[in-house]
């Protein structure tokens, strides 16, 4: 087992929403959006961990917690054993440098008034990566790394296509020589053929620079392609985590089964034995008691209504949070 570079322990995050007048009059407490409900996972050095789930399940919130854009309500994130929300580490920029995030929308994540050269050199300057006179050289090196032409340094973001902008975002993240990359829907806004180019670049750079990647995406085919391990999230909880190929070829949790079978196959005759999911993700304002999935689950019984299942390892598979997983797999 390789070393864990990032350890997330029982991470929870609730966003309070302002108390309405009616609540105030009735003396009810304000409502909270429970975005993360006890997420625990470890990121191993050099691996790609895919995170999948429906929108609103907390994928992006998790990514943002890891880069300290949000502060969790409880739980901890440890980077090489050091709690990143610890007051003494809080003001320290070293962590920010080592964990870099790349965002979904390439049209809003780059400053439209800064040239590519300025965007890249700002990152270098802030973290004092290079002395002033070495910066142009490093910018040229970075452009080369993400295969953008050298004259790109003089151009503004609007002169680039979506795929090229995501390359700039990758270059910006790599400028500060990070250890961990957080890719939040990095290629979701791109066409398939451009997606392929950016994913290829990411895989190649990861190999070359020994990066650890957290790959958040809703495109299941893509996650399967890039990940070593995959975590399936439902309403702010991990319901299954394990080796990517095992999980995709034979998912264990009823939610993973339904989610993975919903992806349309490229084969017209493969209509599949679809496990259809009824209804939608419950609101995180009102997380169901017990197993959060019980309302949409075919196998739910009274125990699922009251008792929340915890993640436990399964023979030959990853870890699954379901009371009845053995029975389900046995009958399948």
């Amino acid at each position, binding site marked *: 087992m390789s070393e864990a570079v990032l350890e997330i322990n029982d991470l929870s995050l609730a966003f309070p929403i302002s108390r309405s007048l009616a609540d105030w009059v009735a003396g009810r407490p304000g409502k909270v959006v429970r975005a993360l409900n006890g997420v625990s996972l470890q990121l191993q050095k050099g691996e790609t961990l895919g995170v999948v789930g429906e929108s609103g399940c907390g994928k992006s919130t998790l990514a943002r917690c890891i880069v300290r854009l949000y502060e969790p309500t409880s739980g901890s994130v440890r980077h090489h054993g050091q709690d990143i929300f610890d007051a003494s580490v809080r003001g320290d920029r070293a962590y920010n440098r080592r964990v870099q995030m790349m965002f979904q929308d390439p049209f809003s994540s780059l400053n439209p008034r800064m040239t590519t050269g300025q965007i890249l050199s700002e990152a270098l300057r802030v973290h004092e990566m290079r002395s002033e006179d070495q910066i142009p050289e490093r910018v040229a090196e970075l452009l080369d790394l993400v295969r953008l032409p050298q004259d790109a340094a003089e151009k503004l973001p609007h002169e680039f296509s979506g795929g090229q902008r995501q390359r700039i975002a990758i270059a910006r993240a790599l400028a500060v020589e990070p250890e961990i990359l957080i890719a939040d829907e990095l290629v979701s806004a791109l066409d*398939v053929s451009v997606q392929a180019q950016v994913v*290829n670049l990411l895989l190649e750079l990861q190999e070359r620079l020994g990066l650890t990647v957290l790959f958040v995406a809703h495109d299941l085919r893509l996650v*399967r*392609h890039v*990940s070593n391990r995959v975590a399936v999230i439902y309403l702010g909880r991990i319901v299954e985590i394990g080796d990517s190929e095992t999980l995709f070829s034979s998912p264990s949790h009823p939610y993973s089964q339904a989610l993975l079978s919903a992806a349309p196959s490229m084969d*017209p005759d493969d209509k599949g034995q679809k496990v259809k999911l009824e*209804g939608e993700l419950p609101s995180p304002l009102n997380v169901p008691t017990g197993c959060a999935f019980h309302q949409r689950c075919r196998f739910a019984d009274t125990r699922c209504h009251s008792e929340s299942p915890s993640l436990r390892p399964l023979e030959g598979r990853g870890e699954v949070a379901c009371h009845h997983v053995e029975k389900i797999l046995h009958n399948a």
Partner: protein
Amino acid sequence: MEQTPILEVEGLCTTFGRGGQTLPALRDVSFTVGEGEVLGLVGESGSGKSVTLRSVLGLARRYGEVTGSVRWQGQELITKSERDLRPIRGRDIAMIFQEPMTSLNPLLTVGQQLVETLQAHTDLSRKARRDRAIEMLDLVGIPAAASRLTDYPHQFSGGMRQRVMIAIALAASPKLLLADEPTTALDVTIQAQILDLILRLSSDMKMGVIMVTHDLGVVAQTCDRVAVMYAGRIVEQGPVRQVLRDPHHAYTVGLMQSVPEGVAPRTQLYSIPGTPPSLAHLPPGCAFAPRCAASTEACLATRPALLRVSEDRQLACFNPKNQTKGCAA
């Protein structure tokens, strides 16, 4: 199964002008849709998929010049005035727009928006309209439909709003549905529900559907026929099984290979070299030739016409893949 086409599009050209420059968004697009048939339109962004739908419905002519012929059950739509188009739009041909977040009026309740369509296109009484509105919401799978009529769009989630859009589009029982990326903004689980719904209605109501999408998986699962678009033209067209099993055009081959399915994990994915051409500087020959591995001088000089290659397949390519196996793509 032999069908009489309800929609026949022939030689459709749409050109947008900008500061003296002309941008040919659609060039000579021809296809037909039969009763109860689902036609898929695929291609990268900017290939003209959405413009095709808008041109059919007469929405593109406000911004550009539309020529060619769009025959709806024998009637020519291109030359019709806005006034004459009104009874056809919404009643015979309905459209679902891509973004459920912006295509509903935020100031009207969902019920008002549904009833509005019914008022315009049917002779139902007030009471019957309300009943029909509830029936439609129920049909598209919105729980507690009657109580949600008075809700505003912001009270619905993305998937629910898309269902409302579909309910509005289907309220007047159209014979043709134009669906512009109906599920792109949605999760796969909701996508599966919505596609099921459209397919079920298409077969129950004998409704033709044009499904615009960039997801080949969606095409494989829902469409009867598929047309692949590149730079404003249809480059390959045929029954979905034949096209996806044995694509002839190098662009179709490239699109299919870029999808990470059946590829060894964590290996390099295929990507089509180069970028799509700008509409302002289209090459004189085949628009795909600069990116094509099998292109010859003929491809660069003259544009291949869309020709019938077998009984129900059409192709615009001089060097189809099955003849250049091994070197193309």
